[in-house]
C-alpha cells in the first residue's frame, strides 16, 4: 500500500447523541491516505452513524471531521461529496426507474454543473461513453447496462453501488457493508472487486464478515457502544482479549 503518512480522514472527539443515547461517543479516528481501513463492531456499535456523520447525512452533536486537513464538520452531503468523499449505502440505495447505464452517467455528472442543462438532450449524458462502459465493465454489469435496476438481482445492485462510488473518482471511499446479504460466491467476487478499485485510493469500510475484513483491511478499528474499543492491524485486533469477548468470538466461527 502507498501509505505515505498523510492523513486522509480525521475525526476529533466526534460525538452524536440521539435523545440521550450516545450513538457515537468521542471517537478519534485517523485514516491514512492509501489505506484500507475497516470499521467493525457488534450491531448498534455506531458504525453506520459514524458513516452518516463522515458524509454529512447526520450533523454531529460535538467534535470535528477533517478531510485532508479541511474542516468539513457540519457540511451537507453534497458538499462532502464534492470534496472527494464518496459513499455507498448499507441498504441498496438506487434510482429504481433508471438503468445501470443511466446511473453511471448521473454519477459522472454529479460533481460538475452540467446537470442544470435543461435545454439540452439527455443523450449528452452519455458523452463520455468509454468512461461509462469502462466503469460498467469493471463491476461486471456491461451486459446488463440497459436494464432497469428494479429488475436487477441483489448482488448486481450492490456492484452498481460500487460503480457509482467509483464514478465520483473519490479521494476517500466509504463503503457501508459492501457484502451485506451476499452468498459466499458473491462475497468473494466483491472482495476481488474492492481490492481492485482500492488500489491507490483510501477506503473505509464497514463489514460484519471477518473473512472480508481479514482479506481487505490493513487497519481495523473496533467500535463498541459508540466508542473505539481497539485499533490496529487485523491480526493484532483479532487477538485482543477485549475484542474477542465483545465481538470476534461469536463472529469468527460464523
Amino acid at each position, binding site marked *: 500500500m502507498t501509505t505515505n503518512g498523510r492523513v486522509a480522514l480525521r475525526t476529533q472527539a466526534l460525538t452524536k447523541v440521539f435523545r440521550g443515547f450516545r450513538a457515537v461517543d468521542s471517537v478519534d479516528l485517523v485514516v491514512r491516505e492509501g489505506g484500507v481501513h475497516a470499521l467493525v463492531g457488534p450491531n448498534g456499535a455506531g458504525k453506520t452513524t459514524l458513516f452518516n456523520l463522515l458524509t454529512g447525512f447526520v450533523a454531529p452533536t460535538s467534535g470535528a471531521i477533517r478531510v485532508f486537513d479541511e474542516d468539513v464538520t457540519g457540511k451537507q452531503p453534497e458538499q462532502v461529496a464534492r470534496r472527494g468523499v464518496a459513499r455507498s449505502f448499507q441498504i441498496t*440505495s438506487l434510482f429504481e426507474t433508471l438503468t445501470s447505464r443511466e446511473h453511471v452517467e*448521473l454519477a459522472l455528472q*454529479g460533481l460538475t454543473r452540467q446537470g442544470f442543462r435543461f435545454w439540452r*438532450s*439527455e443523450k449528452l449524458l452519455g458523452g463520455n461513453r468509454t468512461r461509462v462502459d469502462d466503469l460498467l465493465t469493471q463491476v461486471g454489469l456491461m451486459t446488463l447496462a440497459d436494464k432497469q435496476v*428494479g429488475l436487477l438481482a441483489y448482488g448486481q445492485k450492490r456492484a452498481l453501488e460500487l460503480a457509482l462510488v467509483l464514478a465520483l473518482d473519490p479521494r476517500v471511499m466509504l463503503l457501508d457493508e459492501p457484502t451485506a446479504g451476499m452468498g459466499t460466491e458473491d462475497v468473494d467476487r466483491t472482495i476481488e472487486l474492492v481490492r481492485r478499485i482500492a488500489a491507490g485510493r483510501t477506503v473505509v469500510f464497514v463489514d460484519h464478515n471477518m473473512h472480508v475484513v481479514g482479506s481487505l483491511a490493513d487497519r481495523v478499528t473496533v467500535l463498541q457502544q459508540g466508542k473505539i474499543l481497539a485499533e490496529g492491524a487485523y491480526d493484532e485486533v483479532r487477538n485482543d482479549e477485549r475484542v474477542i469477548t465483545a465481538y470476534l468470538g461469536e463472529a469468527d466461527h460464523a
Partner: protein
Amino acid sequence: MSQSTATPAPVTEAHPVVAAANPRLRWVLLAGGLVAALALPWFVYPPVAMDIVAMALFAIALDILLGYTGLLSFGHAAFWGSSAYVTGLIATNYGVPFPVAIIGGALFAMILALPAGYLSVRRSGIYFAMVTLAFAQMVYFVGYQWSGLTGGENGLQGVPRHFFGVELVETDSFYFYYAALPILLLGMWAAWRIVHSPFGRVLVSIRDNTQRARALGYEVDKYKVVAFVLSAGLTGLAGGVFAINHGFVALTELHWSTSGEVVLMTVLGGIGTLWGGVLGATLAVLLADYLASSGFDGIDLVTGSVFVLVVLLFRRGLWGTVRHQWLAWQQRRSSRRTRSGGGTRR
C-alpha cells in the same frame, strides 16, 4: 434503533420514465396529438378548445414537479393567475400583440416563483404542499385587496386581443385558436425537452432517491428551485393564453381551488407521463363544459366522483395505466423471444 438514520430508498415502482422501447410509437403519438390539436376547434366550441390546450399545458407544467421531481405543489394557481393578470394588464395598458403580453405574464410568474420555490423546497412532502399553498393564498389576498389594479372581485375586464391588426384573429375565436396554439405547443415541447435533458435525469433521481442524489454530489435544493421556476414559467404561458382567450381574468384563477383542479387533472391522466396531463385536462374540461351546457349544476360532484373512481381503479391514472400495460406486454414479449431464441442468459 439509531443505526439507520440515513433514509433508506423509497421503494417506488419500476416504471420507466424514459420510454426506451419504441421511438416510432412516440412519433405516432406525437403526430396524433398534433392532428387532434389542429382539428379540435372544428368539433369543440373554439374558446373551450383553447381552454383544453391551455389547461393541458398547465397540467404538464405541474407534472414536471409532481411526476418528475416528486413535489406536490398545491399553489400553482399563484403562477397561473398572476400570469393571467399580468398578461391582461400588459395587453390592456400597452396595446402590444397578445404573444408579447403572454411572455410578460410568464416572466412575471417565474420571478414570483423564485422566492416561493426558494422557501418551499426546504421542506418536502405535505409540508412542501402547505408552504406552496400558503404562498398562493398570500398572492390571492393581494389580488383581492389590490382592486385598483386587479378589479378585485369583479375581475379584470375587457382584456383586448391585439394581433398585428389581423382582424380575423382579434375578433374570431376560431382563428385566435390557431394564432395562440403555437405558444402552447412550444410550451409543451419545452416541458418535453426539460424532462428529457440532463437536468430532467437529475430530477428523476431526486424523485427516486433524494439522499442518493445528494451523495452523488447533486445540490438537490438548487435543482428543485430551478424545476419550480421552469414549471411556473410554463404555467404562466398557459395562464396568459387563458386570459387572452376569455378577454377577462377572474379572481378564481388565483383561488386555491384552481391549484386543486390542476392537481386533479394531472393525477387523473397519470403523473410522470406528460401525456397524462393532456388527457386529464381534456377530459376534465370537456366534462365540465358538457355538464354546464346541459344545465346541470353539480359539476364538482360529477368530476369529483370520476376522479375518485379513476384513482381507485387505475392507480397510475388513465394514461399511466395504458402505458404500464403496454410496457409490461412488450417486456413479456421480448423476454419470451430471448428465451425461445436461445439468447445468452445470465
